[in-house]
């Protein structure tokens, strides 16, 4: 008897759900018409898949290892300049990816001091796998930081105080108590970061149009072959993302 109360919001919400679901269903029903296996076995596809499977996990790992400690500090301490730090964390989320890519080029491009030095050392920071990782990390890292921070924030600080009083220092308390209890939120953040990294397109196009990752390969194939040409690779990219999601849940 209570459902009619929320009829209006249910109808409005249903519209956007429908709009989210429709392209997904249409895309999956299209896959029957394409030869997925043949599409994925071209050398170009193989290279793109290999590049993506190499760079996205590394970007995710860097984001997690550097981002989770930052999330913990933001959840637990107040310090002068904290608002500035929070603004910097949000920045890559607000900055459009192509602008982010342009920013990275101005910082580590071939003709900047850092970029030139790295190139001289044989590790070019643009148009290389390192460049892909730089682009992915910039765009994707905020997700794990923001989610992990919310996770740590939900852990009652008195649990950590209890651990301290029972004889554990700050580091072992972090490992024994804070980290396991924020585990769910951190994992959700890692998944979001991985999904964002492996799907990263805008910044990657700017920083490293070559070597191709799966998203940039999809774009190039789309230009030359249209929608049917890209269904196999798009399906593979979607599959990898959903597989990681399923594996961790």
């Amino acid at each position: 008897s209570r459902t009619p109360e929320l009829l209006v919001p249910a109808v409005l919400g249903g519209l956007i759900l429908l709009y989210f679901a429709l392209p997904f269903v249409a895309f999956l029903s299209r896959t029957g018409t394409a030869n997925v296996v043949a599409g994925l076995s071209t050398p170009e596809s193989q290279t793109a898949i290999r590049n993506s499977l190499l760079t996205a996990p590394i970007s995710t790992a860097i984001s997690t290892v550097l981002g989770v400690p930052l999330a913990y500090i933001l959840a637990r301490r107040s310090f002068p300049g904290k608002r500035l730090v929070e603004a910097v964390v949000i920045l890559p989320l607000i900055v459009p990816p192509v602008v982010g890519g342009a920013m990275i080029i101005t910082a580590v491009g071939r003709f900047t001091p850092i970029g030139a030095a790295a190139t001289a050392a044989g590790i070019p920071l643009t148009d290389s796998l390192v460049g892909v990782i730089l682009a992915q990390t910039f765009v994707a890292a905020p997700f794990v930081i923001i989610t992990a921070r919310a996770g740590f924030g939900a852990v009652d600080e008195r649990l950590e105080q209890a651990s301290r009083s029972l004889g554990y220092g700050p580091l072992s308390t972090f490992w024994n108590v804070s980290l396991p209890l924020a585990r769910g939120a951190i994992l959700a953040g890692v998944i979001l970061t991985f999904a964002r990294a492996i799907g990263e397109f805008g910044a990657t196009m700017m920083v490293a149009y070559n070597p191709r990752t799966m998203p940039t390969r999809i774009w190039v194939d789309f230009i030359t072959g249209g929608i049917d040409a890209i269904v196999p690779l798009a399906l593979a990219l979607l599959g990898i993302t959903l597989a990681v999601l399923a594996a961790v849940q």
Partner: protein
Amino acid sequence: MRLELDSLTHRYGNEPAVDDVSFGLESGELVALLGPSGCGKTTLVQAIAGHIHPTAGRVLLRGADVTDVPAESRQVSVVFQQSTLFPHMTVSENVAYGLAARDTGSERRDEVVSEYLELVDLRDQRGAYPSELSGGQRRRVELARALAPQPDLLVLDEPLSALDRTLREQLRDEIARIQRETGVTTLFVTHDQEEAMTLADRLVVMNDGTVSGIGEPRTLYESPPTPFIASFLGRSNTFSATVIDQQPLTIAVGETEITLNGSQKDVSTGSTVTCHVRPRDISFRDSANDGANLSLAAEITRVVDIGTHYDVTVRIDTGDELVVECAGNPPAVGESLSLALSERQMTVFGPG
């Protein structure tokens, strides 16, 4: 002394939370730190446990200054109002947690865990997770976890405030038993005077960041050193009187003059004093009120049946209204009669 606070002061920003607090606990004592919400109790707990560094003053444990020692090196166990059991560990893992930190061998650890789960009567819940326990069981596991490493000091910070009254009284008795059996030096922090008086050897009463009085429950209850303690430790009636003579102290309550032979109070003649007496220490004068040597005329204004007793409100000469607790046969509203109270149970506070 086991614990000593020496002129402890702490400010949050410019807001003083506690101001120049000093007191100590002897080995094996159970002391209650009592005061209303916001009086600074929690700040003291945090300073004692080592989670905040006080703005000024020192914390001493077994005579050693530990003000700069981190929490993990203090051997002070704390039980908070809200459960801090680790939800991802079983009951026995929780209890063993503090033992593992002290490098107790795993066999000995099992023994100690069993011993303390026995103490709190939860030997069958070893393998349960905190979420599977009742509120009362969780409290008892927390006690076992806090006690297992044999801390120098056990701090219980409002451990019963989140519970129902029945459970609260049960656990209060259990805490008394456990403290008796283990002999652990205990600071019991509470805003509930009944709880504090039932459990503690001594009370430290706080108000507004400072210590308002220290002493045994009965002494503070019967001879409160300050008006705050008088009203905070139990229901209290106050009425004003004027000092009309010294040695012996004689006061006028409305028309009635009262001579207090036993009271030594530094108040000047002519000044107004406040008298304090508890509702259960007033009776209606009849045949046998041996101890009650003072009398006041009063008129009954209201009678409320509380079930366990009657609350009779009376108005005396001065216009002040007093409440009298009376077990049975209450007088009728409008009746005029004489109140009997004893000098011993009345406290006089000077002006200001």
